[in-house]
């Protein structure tokens, strides 16, 4: 009886062809994200999705996916992932040091962020060091094979759905991948130069988050004050410390109302809190203004401890900066599409 059971189990295992997947060895602070979900804000479900869509789109294009395919989003932390079969990847966003370990955990080679590369069966990709930026995207040729929830693969951490079981990735998670035959017939372009995503200027000067005032009372106070990004940063909100603003009682006792990614709320202690991509849909704190579209990806790349300034600009300037941003982004996407 026992022997028979053992034999049938062995036969069963032989018949199962292991499907393409990758295993999370060190999850750090990572989750599955895509372009996010639309149209559910009236139910208290935020848009969510890529915190730095520009980097995520490029990572996807580099491996031959469509721009909004689901990626692993990694927030500054130790991260390692092992492939059970050869898979084409691209890492993009923060400026990091990437290396590939063989099955005996020996460093084999380093790879450049911002270009596509292969991970062979049994090899491990390690995010070794973070030089600049806080958010990194890992795109897989052929996509993550997960189910959508409310039209998106994004993990909604507050409401615990989407992505992988509605939570951050943990050590030992196995992510199934859809194989994409097209991705394996093409070698990554040899000598392809990595794409400089991170704006070098921001590393040397105080990054400025340009914003449009909301009724002006607090915006003038916030303009060009010096702040520092505290470790209390998540996909939902980024807390800053620095000069406390004077809020009058009428502003701080306002009824809650709709808020968006990039909105700058002033806490009762006078310090700003910038809403992240997973922000709640309703907010009750006083509102100083809202970070413009062109600077939203920058928000996801500010390092903990970074000095930050808010620059209040007018609508014409915002329109010009947004237009320049869209042109720059489209040129970059076009260049990647042309090189693939």
């Amino acid at each position: 009886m026992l022997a028979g059971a053992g034999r049938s189990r062995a036969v069963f295992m032989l018949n199962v062809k292991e499907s393409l997947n990758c295993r999370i060895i060190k999850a750090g602070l990572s989750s599955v994200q895509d372009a996010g979900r639309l149209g559910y804000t009236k139910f208290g479900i935020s848009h969510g999705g890529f915190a730095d869509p520009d980097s995520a789109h490029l990572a996807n294009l580099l491996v031959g996916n469509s721009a909004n395919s689901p990626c692993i989003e990694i927030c500054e932390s130790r991260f390692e992932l092992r492939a059970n079969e050869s898979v084409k990847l691209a890492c993009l966003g923060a400026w990091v040091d990437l290396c590939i370990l063989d099955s005996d955990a020996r460093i084999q080679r380093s790879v450049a962020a911002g270009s596509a590369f292969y991970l062979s069966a049994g090899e491990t990709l390690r995010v070794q060091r973070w030089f600049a930026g806080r958010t990194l995207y890992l795109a897989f040729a052929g996509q993550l094979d997960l189910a959508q929830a409310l039209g998106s693969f994004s993990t909604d951490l507050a409401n615990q759905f989407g992505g992988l079981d509605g939570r951050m990735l943990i050590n030992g998670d196995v992510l199934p991948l859809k194989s994409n035959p097209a991705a394996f017939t093409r070698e990554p372009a040899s000598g392809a130069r990595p794409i400089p995503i991170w704006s070098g200027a921001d590393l040397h000067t105080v990054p400025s988050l340009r914003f449009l005032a909301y009724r002006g009372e607090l915006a003038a106070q916030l303009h060009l004050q010096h702040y520092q990004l505290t470790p209390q940063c998540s996909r939902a909100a980024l807390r800053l410390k620095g000069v406390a603003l004077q809020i009058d009682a009428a502003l701080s006792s306002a009824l809650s109302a709709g808020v968006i990614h990039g909105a700058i709320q002033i806490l009762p202690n006078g310090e700003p809190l910038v809403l992240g991509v997973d922000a709640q849909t309703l907010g009750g704190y006083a509102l100083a203004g809202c970070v413009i579209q062109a600077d939203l990806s920058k928000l996801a790349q500010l390092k903990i401890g970074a000095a930050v300034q808010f620059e209040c600009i007018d609508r014409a300037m915002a329109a010009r900066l947004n237009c320049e941003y869209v042109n720059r982004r489209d040129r970059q996407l076009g260049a990647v599409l042309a090189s693939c």
Partner: protein
Amino acid sequence: MFTGEPIAFEFAGSQWWLCALGDRAVRLELQIQDMSLASCGAVQHLSAALHAKQTHFSVQAQVPAYASLMLMLQPGSDLPDLAAKLLAFFSTAQTAISLKEYSLKEWAAPLVQLQLLPEPGLDAALLADAFGLSVPQLLSQFCAAQYRVAQIGFRAGFPYLLGLPPELSLPRRASVRAQVPALSVAIGGAQAGIYPATGPGGWHVIGQIAQPLFNPNGFPERGGAPCWLAPGDRVQFLC
């Protein structure tokens, strides 16, 4: 040229501000900011009127609240253009007609009934004490009132309910409870609410329901919507 300064407008007899929220959203705010059934009705009316024209306005999503309605723009669309279209819409006579239609629909809307479980909530005894009532008296007074979903937020499917009898209002707990059980019905100040999932919360728990409020796969009975309740719904608790 639209500078972003708030612009006053009138809609169906109430006075509003149109305020730009950055470069991607506008907030339409009632000039008198209060938590009343009248304000909630005005917001719902505006929401319904604009929902029918969502494509025309290039609006992607709405967030109704107690005394405001936020509209999020579709990517690539122009905010000054939306502001101009909205103001043109508000200045037309159509709104008066839609107010009549809306009122008819509003009063014909079915009532969502939610059965309270027999076991009183964690704070039912405390609440009853505070109001000088017995627990059964507290529950029957709570259930006698009719509620309206003013806004949904904090968590997916968490309804902020207007209509709590004033004599049952009590300031929030001094400290936030780390784990409020899922589907707890609670009182926070003059509002009532229901926690869709287990998690932190500072409101007084009066009871619990069995009806799930949030389902990421959608409720077929609610046309596939992920939440059992929607802003504007009328709610009655049964005990």
